[in-house]
C-alpha cells in the first residue's frame, strides 16, 4: 500500500512522477518476492508440471524416458496391488481423521476449563508432536511387541488376549492409526483451543441465564461457532493423512502382506527403490487429484454446515 500520508504531502504532482513511483514500488516488491517466485517456479509449479509429463513415460533414470501415454494410469487403476494401496490409504484417512479430531476436540474442551495446571497439561499433550515420527514409530514398535511389550501385558492383565499387532494383517493398520492419533492430535487440539477461546463469553453466559443445559450449550452455541475451526482442521488433517509415510515406512514397511501399504510408501518405493519414475509420478498424480478433489468438495460443502457470522 502507498501510505496515505505520503500521498497527502505531495497531492498534485504530475501523473508521470506518480506513475514512476508506482512502477518503482512494484519493482521493489518483486525484488522482495524474488526468492519466493524462484521457489514457486523451481520447487512447486515447475515440478508439478514436470511430474505430470514424467507420469506419461516409462523411465528408470538411466535410459532416456519413453513416452507411453496413459499406460501408467491404466496399470494403476486396474491392477490389484495399487488398488489395495488406494483402499488402504482411504482406510487410514477415514479412521484416522475422525478419531484424531474427536480426541483433539474432546481434550480441547477439557483443557478450556479453568483447571489448575492447564498449561502444564497442554505441554504434555503436545510432547508427541515435537518428537520425530521416526522416534515415535520405533517406540511404538516396541510397545506393540506381542511377547515383551507393555500393551499386550496390560491387556492380558485385564483378561484380553492381545493381537500380534504389527504382525497381523487385521491389526497392523489399526496399530498404525492408534500411534498416529497419539502422535498427531496435539496440533489439532491447540487449534481447537484457540477456536474455543475465540467464542464470546457473553453468549455462553446469556444462555446459562436462560437455563440452557450443558448439552444444549455445546450443540447450540459452541459447536456452531466452532465450525470454521473444525472445517480448517478437517481440511488440513485430510491433506496430511493422504500423505502418510514415515510411520508406515518405519513400523511395517507396508506389511504384513501389504496390509499397511499406503500411497506415500508405494510412490517412494517405486521411485527410489525400483526406479520406476514414470509409474511413481503417475501414482503421485492420482494422490494429488484425490487431495484436490476432497479439498474442493469440502470447500463446497462447508457452506452447508459452517457458520461464519454470529
Amino acid at each position, binding site marked *: *500500500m*502507498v*501510505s*496515505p*500520508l505520503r500521498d497527502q504531502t505531495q497531492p498534485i504532482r504530475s501523473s508521470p512522477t506518480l506513475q514512476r513511483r508506482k512502477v518503482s514500488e*512494484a519493482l521493489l*516488491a518483486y525484488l*522482495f*518476492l524474488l*526468492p*519466493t517466485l*524462484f521457489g*514457486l517456479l523451481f*520447487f*512447486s509449479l515447475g*515440478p*508439478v508440471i514436470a*511430474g505430470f509429463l*514424467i507420469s506419461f513415460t516409462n523411465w528408470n533414470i538411466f535410459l532416456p524416458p519413453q513416452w507411453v501415454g496413459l499406460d501408467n494410469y491404466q496399470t494403476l487403476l486396474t491392477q490389484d496391488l495399487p488398488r489395495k494401496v488406494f483402499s488402504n490409504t482411504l482406510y487410514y484417512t477415514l479412521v484416522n481423521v475422525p478419531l484424531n479430531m474427536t480426541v483433539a476436540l474432546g481434550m480441547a474442551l477439557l483443557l478450556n*476449563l*479453568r*483447571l489448575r495446571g492447564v498449561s502444564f*497439561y497442554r505441554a504434555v*499433550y*503436545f*510432547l*508427541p508432536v*515435537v*518428537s*520425530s515420527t*521416526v*522416534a515415535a514409530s*520405533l*517406540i*511404538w514398535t*516396541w*510397545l506393540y511387541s506381542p511377547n*515383551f511389550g507393555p500393551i499386550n501385558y496390560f491387556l492380558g492383565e485385564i483378561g484380553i488376549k492381545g493381537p500380534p499387532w504389527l504382525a497381523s494383517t487385521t491389526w497392523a493398520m489399526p496399530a498404525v492409526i492408534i500411534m498416529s492419533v497419539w502422535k498427531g492430535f496435539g496440533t489439532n487440539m*491447540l*487449534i481447537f483451543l*484457540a*477456536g474455543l477461546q475465540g467464542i464470546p463469553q457473553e453468549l455462553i*453466559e446469556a444462555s*446459562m441465564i436462560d437455563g440452557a443445559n*450443558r448439552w444444549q450449550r455445546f450443540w447450540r452455541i459452541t459447536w456452531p461457532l466452532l465450525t470454521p*475451526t473444525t472445517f*480448517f482442521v478437517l481440511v488440513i488433517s485430510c*491433506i496430511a493423512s493422504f*500423505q502418510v*509415510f514415515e510411520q508406515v515406512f*518405519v513400523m511395517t514397511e507396508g506389511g504384513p502382506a501389504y496390509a499397511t501399504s499406503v*500411497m506415500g510408501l508405494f510412490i*517412494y518405493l517405486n521411485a*527410489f527403490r525400483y526406479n520406476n*519414475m514414470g509409474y511413481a509420478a503417475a501414482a*503421485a498424480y492420482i*494422490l*494429488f487429484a484425490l*487431495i*484436490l478433489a476432497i479439498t474442493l468438495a469440502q470447500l463446497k460443502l462447508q457452506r452447508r454446515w459452517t457458520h461464519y457470522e454470529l
Partner: protein
Amino acid sequence: MDTLRTLNPTPTLTPAAKKRHGQPGPLYWLQRLGLHAIIWVGALAMVLPFLWMISTSLKSQGEAMTYPPVWIPRPALWSNYVDVVQSFPFELFGLNSLKIALLGTLGQLISTSLAAYAFARMKFPGRNVLFVLLLATLMIPSHVTMIPTFLLFNALGWFNTHYPLFVPAWFGGAFGTFLVRQFFQTIPMDYNDAAAIDGAGHFRIFTSIYIPLAKPVLATLSLFTFMNHWNEFLLPVIYLTDQDKMTLTVGLSFFRLQYNTLYHYLMAGTVLSTIPIFVLFVVLQKYFVQGIVMSGLKG
C-alpha cells in the same frame, strides 16, 4: 444446577447467575475430580511411551526381553549410551542435523519475511493472485514434487550432499509467509508514514521497524522450521547415502536395521535423538503454542 459451573467456571459468571446457582455442592466437586482424572489418564497415555523408551534404554538385553515387563531397570545400565555412541557416530549425525536445521531456518526467515512484507505493505500487480497461488501450494503433496526435484538436484550434482535438505528453505514457503504476513498486517501504518516522512524507503522500514517488531513471530517461525528440518525423514532418506553425512533421524532408522531386535540399544539411540528437540520445546513452549494458534485461527 451445580453442573453448570464446571463447563464454564466461575470468573465469568455474573453475580446474578452466581446467586441462582448458589454454593458449589458435593456434585460439583465430584465432577471436577472426574475431569481431573480424565485429564490425568490422558496425560499418562502421552508420557508413558516416552518413559518406556527411557526405561528400556537403561536395561540389559535380558531385562528388556523379560515377561512381565519391568518398568524400573535394575541396575540402570548407563553404559548402553556409551556403547551406542561408540558403535554409531551419533554426535556426527547430531552436528549434521544441526547444520541443516540452522541453515534451513536462516533461509526460511529471510525469504519468507521479505515476501511477507511485500504481501502486507506493498502494492504491485498480481499481488492477490500470487498470494493465493502460494497458499495453494500447501495442497501439493510432497510426493508429487519429490521426483522432479530429485532430478533437478541430481543434475546439479547435489546427490549425497546436504544442499537438497536446506536450500529449498531459502526460497520461501507458504506457512511462514502467511504467518509473518498476518503479523505484519497488525503493525500500524502510522509507522510507515512517519518513516516515509523521514525519507526511509521500504527496505529501510522493513529492516529497522518491521523486523524488530516481529521478533516473537519470527521466533515462532524459527522454532517450527528448525523442528521440521530436524525431524525431516523423507528427504535425507532419498538424498543421503554416506553414513558420515546422515542426520539423526535417518541415522536412527539405519541404526534400527543394524540393531533390529536389540531394543535397549535402539531406545538409547532414540533418546539421544529426541532429547535436543524436547529441551528446545520445554524452553520455548510459548512460541510453539503461538505458532499453531496463529496459523489455525486465521485459516
